[in-house]
């Protein structure tokens, strides 16, 4: 099963260090040696702030991804627990963007690549769990408040098991309580 990065709004302070780390991770190691205008700033997670919430939102790496099904080019793949976009073959049709139920995909320019009409080439852009870097997702590593976590199926399954246990106990207590009252 696929893992995904989840943000905790109780710990997040909206600083966006994660978004910058994402750009650094996907630009390669030498972003500081490039010409300052020779990269594109395309974070693959986005800070959402409402009155009550601050939290970054990114791809859930669904088991049956709507984006993958919607892609006419078949350039969204699932491999090693990650859903990722083969941007080389992306035609920028935005079908995946429309299909994604959590708004995790946007369109981003590819630095220094232009279409025949002179416009920058845009492709679909989303979290790939930093699959090409060692050390796991960069956003998790830099977050100063540990607000981001890689959540695995096993963890969710464990939590579900605990909840089932708690629910079972509550049921039992409830019936015992009711029985006691009847006496």
């Amino acid at each position, binding site marked *: 099963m696929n893992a995904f990065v989840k943000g905790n*709004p*109780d*710990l997040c*302070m*909206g*600083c*966006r*260090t994660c*978004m*910058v780390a994402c*750009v*650094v991770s996907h630009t390669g190691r030498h*972003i*500081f040696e490039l010409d*300052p205008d020779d*990269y594109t*700033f395309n974070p693959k997670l986005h800070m959402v*702030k*409402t*009155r*009550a*919430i*601050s939290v970054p939102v990114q791809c859930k790496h669904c088991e049956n991804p709507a984006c993958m099904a919607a892609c006419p080019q078949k350039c969204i793949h699932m491999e090693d627990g990650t859903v990722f976009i083969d941007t080389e073959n992306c035609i920028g049709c935005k079908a995946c963007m429309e299909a994604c139920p959590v708004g995790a995909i946007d369109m981003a320019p590819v630095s220094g690549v232009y279409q025949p009409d002179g416009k920058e080439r845009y492709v679909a852009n989303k979290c790939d769990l930093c699959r090409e870097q060692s050390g796991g997702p960069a956003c998790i590593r830099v977050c*100063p*408040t540990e607000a981001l976590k890689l959540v695995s199926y096993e963890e969710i399954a464990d939590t579900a098991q605990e909840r089932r246990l708690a629910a079972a106990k509550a049921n039992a207590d409830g019936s015992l309580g009711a029985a006691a009252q009847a006496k």
Partner: protein
Amino acid sequence: MTMGVQEIEDAGLILNFGYNGADSHPIVQRRIIRARQKGAKIICVDPRVIESARIADIHLQLKGGTNLALVNALCNVIYTEGLMDEKFIREKTTDFDEFVEVIKKYTPEDVSPICRISPEDIRKAARLYATTKPAMILYGMGVCQFGQAVDVVKTLADMALMTGNFGKPATGIGPVRGQNNVQGACDMGALPNNYPGYQSITDDAVREKFEKAWGVPLSNKVGLPLTHVPRRVLRPEDPSKQIHAYYIFGEDPAQTDPDINEVREALEKCDLVILQDIFMNRAGQYADVVLPSTSWGEHEGVYSCCDRGFQRFHKMIEPPEGVKVDWQIISEISTAMGYPMHYNNTQEIWDEMRRLCPSFAGATYEKLEATGGVQWPCRSEDMSDKGTVYLHKGKFSNPDGKGRFYATDWRPPQELTDTEYPLILNTGREVGHYSARTMTGNCRLLRSLEDEPGWVQINPEDCLEYGLEHGDLVRLESRRGWCLSRVSCTDRTSPGAVFMTYQWWIGACNMLTNPNLDPVSNTPEYKYCSVRIECIEDQAWAENYVVTEYRRLRESMGIDVSGEEAAVQ
């Protein structure tokens, strides 16, 4: 700060008053979040929904400019409900009765319409603060940047005094200092009334000590605060007190001081303006002399962080050819003026300073290196003196060793809203940028995250009324100037109140701010002035203006913009 940053997470309660750690000091905010995780109660007092407000048990979203009315009311509740630490008041404080005379007028019912907070919420917050131990107050520029600021600081200290929240771990009051070495500049006596180590220039014995050490007679006349400079250049009350020379060192008053138009006029009129800095900045464009110096990373020394922590910073790379270290430049000017100053390294300067400052005397370079840093007071060079985590243990620093109560009446900000300028402007920091932005604006990633013209936060109700949408460019005007900014439509700010960050050239909120000063601290009222919004019909024109104006400004700062595409006409 009377406490150490590391203590924040051990507080039972944090009163987070006019302090937005998430944008100003994320790594201090981290401790507030950890405190919350460990079960601390949080009371947040702020006119906006800031990050601390989101995680607070109680958020008092007061109307801007009403701080003292609220703090007086909080004290009123603690007093009338008998929630004080009577023993602490009796044994460790003075002037309580005079204090009570003032605060007893501020009932929650009377203050409620001023602050726009319900009497019940005021009572709840006061009770929670007074009954949760240990309680700590953290405050920031939301307290200090008002025409009435020092009074609020003193009354917050009253709250801590009346509940016995001083001189114990994880208590006290903490002004979390903004810039990396603002504490240090104060420690080193870069103040018009103090020598290094907070020793008064009007104290004869102290002055004699410095006269002897420096070998010259010294003036006992308190000097001029920086924020008085524009008026003392342009409109001195007494012509013999006019300022004729302004030596600006490592800052940009033409960007960060209030009412930039007035500052720039003063720089134009001042006979001699000297700028010593690492990058060209807005003030530099008015300078008669520019002295290029080494940057952080190219020299070494000691910084003081917000909680009195002396820490060594190191040289990492060689400076560019042609620049000099700040203290060398100043020493050479001094020598050329007939007062020879010569140091071989920063350690010689530091050791001279330590000999003159009893509370810093023990903080040797060796100790700072070995321990990673010490919090002053640190009086003995012996390695066993590891400094002071929190202040006022056992007694206060007043001559009688007691904490003094102080109270006074609330007064509103100077420039209130009216039909012509109906909106309150509040200003603050951008999390990814720093001060005049010459450093962070030259960092590619921070520049990419946020760039000109910056944002103006406007409540959705106001957006609806003005017909504004998120992302629109708008013109903001005050009685002093105008600027352009981009609309951020958010209910984190209240209707009738807008918020901007001060780092932008095109979106320069200090074109608008009011240079009304607190009479004691001389801090300007950055957090409150009245403005109006002018919608821009032709958004394409406005977008083009931002691009071309930004390019023009960067070019005037020495950037080669010739390769950049022309703006779309």
